[in-house]
C-alpha cells in the first residue's frame, strides 16, 4: 500500500513577510545549532578515532642477544617485545624477526611479514628458503623473491652490533603500497 508522499500541511493563509523572515531565521538558527552540537560531539570523536594515523613511534634499538648466540650462516627467529606497549596488550606486544648472521659482525634482520599481504613467512633451513603459507610466496635466504606473488623482497630491519650484543631497530609492520 502506498503512503501519501507529502508530509507538509498546507498553510491555512498566506504567510506575512514578517512571518517568513522570522521562520527563515528560526530554521537557520535550529540548523546552525544542530551543526554546532554535531561539531562539539564529532570533532573529538573523529580526532580520537583517527589519532593512530598521526602517532609516530620512532624506532628504538633493542638488544636481542649476544653476538656469540648466533651461528654464522644460520637464520633464526628472534622474538621481540614492543618497548612501549599499551598495558593491556598482553602477548600481542610480542613480534618476531628472522635474523641471519652473515659474517663475524654482519647481521641481517628480515621482517617476518610477506610483502604480498603480510602473512608470516617461515624459514626452511635445509631448503634455504622462506615460504609464505597464505598465497605461496617464496624468498631466497637473502630475502629476494624466489617465486609467487610477493611484489618485492622481504623488508629488512636495521641491525648493528654494540658491546658484544646484537641490536635491531624496531619498526612498523611494513605495508606494501604498489599504487
Amino acid at each position: 500500500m502506498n503512503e501519501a508522499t507529502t508530509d507538509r500541511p498546507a498553510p491555512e493563509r498566506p504567510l506575512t513577510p514578517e512571518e517568513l523572515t522570522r521562520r527563515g531565521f528560526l530554521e537557520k538558527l535550529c540548523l546552525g545549532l544542530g551543526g554546532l552540537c554535531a561539531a562539539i560531539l564529532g570533532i573529538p570523536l573523529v580526532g580520537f578515532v583517527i589519532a593512530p594515523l598521526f602517532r609516530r613511534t620512532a624506532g628504538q634499538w633493542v638488544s636481542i642477544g649476544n653476538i656469540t648466540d648466533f651461528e654464522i650462516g644460520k637464520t633464526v627467529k628472534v622474538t621481540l617485545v614492543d618497548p612501549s606497549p599499551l598495558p593491556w596488550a598482553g602477548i600481542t606486544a610480542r613480534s618476531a624477526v628472522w635474523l641471519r648472521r652473515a659474517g663475524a659482525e654482519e647481521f641481517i634482520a628480515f621482517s617476518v611479514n610477506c610483502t604480498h599481504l603480510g602473512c608470516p613467512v617461515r624459514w626452511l633451513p635445509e631448503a634455504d628458503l622462506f615460504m609464505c603459507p597464505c598465497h605461496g610466496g617464496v624468498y631466497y635466504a637473502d630475502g629476494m623473491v624466489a617465486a609467487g606473488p610477493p611484489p618485492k623482497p622481504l623488508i629488512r630491519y636495521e641491525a648493528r652490533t654494540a658491546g658484544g650484543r646484537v641490536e635491531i631497530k624496531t619498526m612498523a609492520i611494513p605495508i606494501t603500497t604498489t599504487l
Partner: protein
Amino acid sequence: MKRLIIGSWKWLDDRLGVSHLIAPAAKHLVPHDARWWYVFGSATLLAFIVQVVTGVALSFSYVSSASQAYETLQFITNQAPFGRFLRGMHYFGASAMVLMVGAHMAQTFLFGSYKYPREMNWTTGVLLLGFTLVMGFTGQLLRWDQTATWSVVVAAEQAGRVPLIGNWLAQFILGGTIIGGATLSRFFAIHVFLMPAFIFLFIGLHLRLVLRHGISEPPVDGKKVNPATYRAEYEDLLRKTGRPFWPDGAWRDFVFGTAMIVAIALLAYVVGPPRLDKPPDPSVLNADPRPDWYLLWYFAVLALIPPKIEGYVMVLAPAVIGILLLAAPLLNNRGERAPSRRPWSIAVVLLSVIMIGSLWIEGARSPWSPNFDPPPLPVRVVGADSGPIFTGAKLFRDKGCLNCHLIDGYGGRRGPELSYVGDKLSQSDIIIRILNGGVNMPAFGKTLMPEELAQITAFIQSRKRSPSAISGTNLGSRER
C-alpha cells in the same frame, strides 16, 4: 480476569499508540501471488535479530582486551553454560545472514524488483550487504586468536594498496603501526557499535521504503515498467487482488524463518562454534591464516590474480563492483521485469554463483599454499631403500621440493605433480629446471652441491609409470 486484561491492554494501547503504529504496516496490502520467493528479506532480518540477541548475550562475558579476549572466549566456549551453543548460534547466524542477503539480492535482481519506483530499496540493500560483510570480517577478528591477528595484518596490507591514503588506512586498521593493545578494541567498537548502528538505520530505511513503495508484484512476461503509469497500475492491482500482509503474506515468512532458526540452532548444537586457533601471539610464526567461509572466495582471488595487476584489482575491483551494484537501478529502471525477457539477468546471477563457488572451492583447497609438513616418502613410493634414488628422495623433501610438488599423493600442490615426470623430462631438462628454477619455482643452483643435484635428479628421473624403467640400486617394487 479476561475483561481486566483486555481493558488494561486497551488503556495501554490508547496511551502508547502501539496498534496505531503497527497496524498500517501489518495490514498493508501485498500482491496475492507474492509467495515463497519473497521470504529471503524477512529471513535476513531474522538472522540479524539472531545476531543481536546472541551477540548481546556473548558480550556479557567477552572482554575486548587484547590480553584477555582469547581467554574469555575459551571460558565462553568451554565453561559458561550455553556458551558453546551461543557462539555456535552467532557463527551460523552470521552464515545465514550472508546467505539470505545473497538470496534476497539475487531474487530482487532476477525479478527486476529494483526498477521504478524501488531504486532506493535496492541501493539501501546493497549498502546493507556491504555492512553485513564488514560485520562478518570484524566478527572473525573478535575471535582474537592467531588467525584473527594475522587477518588484521592482511586487511591492513590490502588497505595499504589504496593510492595516496593506503598507509593511513593501514594504520587506522591496526590502531597504530603494529598489532598491539589498540588493535582489538577498534574492531570491537566497529563490530558491536558502529556497524550495528548503520545496519539498524538502513534496515529502518529499507523497511520504510518497502512500505512506501509496496512489495513488488511477481513479474509477468511482456508487462513493462513504465514510470508514468506504474504507481496507478500497482494501486489498481492491490485494490483488486491484494491481501493484507498480516497474516496472508506473513505466515510464509514465519514458516521459513522458523526453519532457518531451527537449522542455525541444530548446527550450533551439533557442529558447534568455529575452533579457536592458537593464542594471538604475533611471534609465533607457524600460522596458516584463513578467512571464514564467506570470504574464502576472496582469499582465492588474492592468490590467483596476476601479481602485475593485483594492486589495481585489490583496489579497483571492489570499488567498481560496489559502484555497479549501487548504480544498477539508475542505469536500467524501466521496461521488462520478467527474467524470461531478461536472460542476461539469469546469466549474471548464474555466472556470479559459479564464479564465487569455483573460487570458494579453490580457496578451500588452497593449492597455492605450500605443504609445510609433508611426511617422508615411504620406500614403496621411492622404489629404493638405498642408493642415489633413495638419497635423492630424502633430499627432495629436505630441500623443500616436496612442500610444493606432489608425488603419489605425498607433498604439496603448489607446483606441478611429479609422479610421472620421468616420462616427460630428460635428465638435462630436469637439471636445468632445478638449477635455474622456473615459473613460480625457486632456482636451486646456489644451494645444491653437485652430488646432491645428481641424487635429486636421479630420484626425479625415476618417477615413471613403468617400474622397470627405474634405475638405481636396491630397487623395491614401486606400488601404484
